[in-house]
């Protein structure tokens, strides 16, 4: 198999087309764990879990925070429909820190199952934002 085989990727969120390019490899978090996608992947539909998404193109890696959505891998292209997606420099660390504290507080005093699940999701998003956002500062 030839290296540097490219495939087309589109990351679309409700307010914009987040990213669209031909890349070599994609790394994304799904509910079943992290997966890497190369050209010629089998068709697959999966649910995205909050995590870092990496676009690897001619040796360079671009990272972004992908919070929610699903990924559809088709023979000719990959589409990620994201409910929210951010580049590291768009992340507001201050807000993320607040959100983290809020979510942790809510988890401690959780009064219902649904709330707990949502707070946990919020916490994971906040942690992800902090992780990527802090990397940018260093």
């Amino acid at each position, binding site marked *: 198999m030839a290296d540097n085989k490219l495939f087309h990727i589109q990351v679309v969120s409700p307010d914009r087309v987040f990213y669209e390019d031909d890349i070599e490899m994609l790394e994304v978090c799904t509910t079943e764990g992290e997966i890497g996608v190369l050209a010629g992947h089998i*068709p697959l539909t999966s649910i995205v879990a909050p995590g870092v998404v990496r676009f690897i193109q001619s040796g360079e890696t671009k990272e972004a925070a992908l919070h929610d959505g699903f990924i559809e891998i088709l023979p000719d292209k990959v589409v990620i429909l994201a409910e929210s997606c951010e580049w590291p420099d768009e992340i507001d660390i201050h807000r993320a820190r607040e959100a983290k504290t809020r979510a942790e507080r809510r988890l401690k005093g959780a009064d219902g199952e649904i709330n707990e699940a949502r707070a946990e999701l919020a916490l994971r998003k906040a942690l992800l934002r902090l992780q990527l956002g802090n990397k940018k500062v260093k």
Partner: protein
Amino acid sequence: MASMREIKRRKESIQNTSQITAAMKVVSTAKLQKAKGRVEASKPYFHYMHDAVTSILAKSDNVDHPYLQSNNSKKIAVIVVSSNRGLAGGYNNNVVKLLTQGDMEKEDVFVYAVGRKGRDSLKRNGYEIKADFSEVMNEPLFSDAVDIGRAVLEAYAKGEIGKIYIAYTVFKNTITQIPTLTQLLPVAVEVGEKKADDLVLMNYEPNAEEALDKIIPKYVNSMIYGALCEALASENGARMQAMDSASNNAEEMIADLSLKYNRARQASITQELTEIVAGASAIE
């Protein structure tokens, strides 16, 4: 003929009104530009979302899932997207008419209202308002759509409702807006056009049922968000048009009244002259 003073007062009041309508037109034009940009920016997402969902459903013919079949409840949830403010011509009325003149039984409909005007007039018509999200309409965010989506999906999952519709106004262009009633759940798939790539076998992770379980709510949310964006653009488009024609009408009336005023003035001058001449001739 009305007195000069009366005509003048009327003319002034119309002039004031036309100033207001002209200002409102400018405001809604600016808002329309913003809303239009939003519709444009969100279009790719809905395009792909719709494509993805229809292709997933086309490839998974025999998936048995509650979101794809109507449950036994006869009740129908309708999300009605109207505006919070009036003076938008027939905009709100047209959306309400979708329900009042549609073929749904009034008793079976639960209204999830977005927009005060639609809510109030449906309430007057005797519909049951289940929930009200009117404050959303000022600046619809995706998270608002998620909230609305969660409310209807919970009711659907509990079996309280059997179908979910959304009534909103499609923004075709600045002068054409089309009120539409669309079915959200159970998902209506257009069967028939099976393209070549539909034949690719799709794999699901974790599995088809669970994937659909997650994807369909996202689809519903995105449809709601799209409807909100389009409705906002339509509202401002409709208001712009209404205000434009109001300004035109005011102009016409002012021209008409100016003519009448001048005639009345001329008449009074003529009368005064006649009186003077008559008086002078009486003295001689």
